[in-house]
């Protein structure tokens, strides 16, 4: 059974009253969505709250899911929109924490890898949100242009050009970090 078929089955079970079936969806998407929210710039505490609100919203609106589409692209679209809204409102009430968070570096993970991750995350935060999002959906959520276009509600052509610009800007941001640290 494909992942998409598993998702649809979970949705069906949820809609027929089996709330526990939502655990299957969480199992597959909790990590990528939490990671995407962190890469968008939320700190650990905010990412937790936003992630929780995203999944509750998804659950409450499961009946609006169109099975003709892939479930994950519908889910990611809600997740990205909700995360942007939440981050905007949190930014309005308190300045966004600049404390970066990373995956827990395990003992084998060398310092260089941790430093590389810090560099990329800092570079991402230097980008405008529209460019940051195009990198996140393409490389962290690993969506095709077509899927990314649906998630970001943009034409496919715009996604391609935005991603091209985003990579350019990110390279520049990484360069200027290197110059600053010399």
């Amino acid at each position, binding site marked *: 059974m494909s992942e998409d078929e598993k998702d649809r089955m979970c*949705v069906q079970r*949820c*809609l027929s*009253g089996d*709330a*526990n079936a*939502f*655990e299957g969806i*969480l199992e597959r998407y*909790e*990590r*990528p969505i*939490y*990671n995407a929210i*962190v*890469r968008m710039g939320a700190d*650990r505490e905010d*990412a*937790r*709250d936003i*992630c*929780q*609100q995203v*999944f*509750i*919203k998804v*659950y*409450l*609106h*499961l*009946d*609006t899911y169109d099975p003709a589409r892939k479930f994950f692209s519908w889910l990611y679209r809600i997740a990205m929109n909700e995360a942007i*809204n*939440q981050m*905007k*409102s*949190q930014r*309005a*009430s*308190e300045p966004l924490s600049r404390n970066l*968070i*990373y*995956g*827990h*570096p395990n003992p084998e*993970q060398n310092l260089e*890898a941790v430093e*590389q*991750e810090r560099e*990329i995350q800092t570079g991402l935060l230097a980008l405008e949100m529209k460019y940051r999002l195009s*990198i996140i959906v393409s*490389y*962290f959520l690993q969506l095709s242009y077509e899927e990314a276009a649906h998630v970001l509600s943009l034409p496919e052509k715009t996604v391609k050009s935005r991603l091209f610009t985003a*990579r350019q800007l*990110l*390279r520049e941001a*990484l360069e200027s970090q290197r110059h600053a640290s010399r």
Partner: protein
Amino acid sequence: MHPDEELIARLQAMPQAEPPSDLRTAIMDSVRASGGAGAFRRPARLARRVFLGGWAVAAAIILIFFVIAQPRTEQHSAATMAPLSASYRSEALTLEVSRNGSLVKLGLIPLRTGSITIEWDPKSAELVAISGAEAASSSKGRTTFTVFDLSRRVGIVLRPRPSAGSLSVRVLSEKREVIRAAVDLN
């Protein structure tokens, strides 16, 4: 290697940030307490119009009742401690407080459109989820949203802190306090 390829390789090699270990349990608790998948199902267009019309008539009757028959709206005071599972009414909305497992649900039935702010003591409870409110903004102990559609109920799920014995809630409609309640959590 082309600089673009190198960057893509670096991006793809980024480790995933690990979600907190209790996040999944917290989400499932909220899901079970939420009243079912698709709880905010929208009726079909015609049914929706009839539904909205019904609500508009009901809201008008209630407003007339409050404005003409009872010019002084009764407000609930924090001085009296209400049990957990209570209903509070004002001219702007009805607030229903109920318990669902370890969570407290604040259900709001709006009677007029406009901005609504809910405040609670953040030392007594933390926000778990908001449903039915478009573009709600939240900070610690406070949630604000705008009611455009009187047919939509708004649900706010809070998790009481273990040491909290009571929860004080304040509801403002268009920045004016309309309900103040203290709820016994024990």
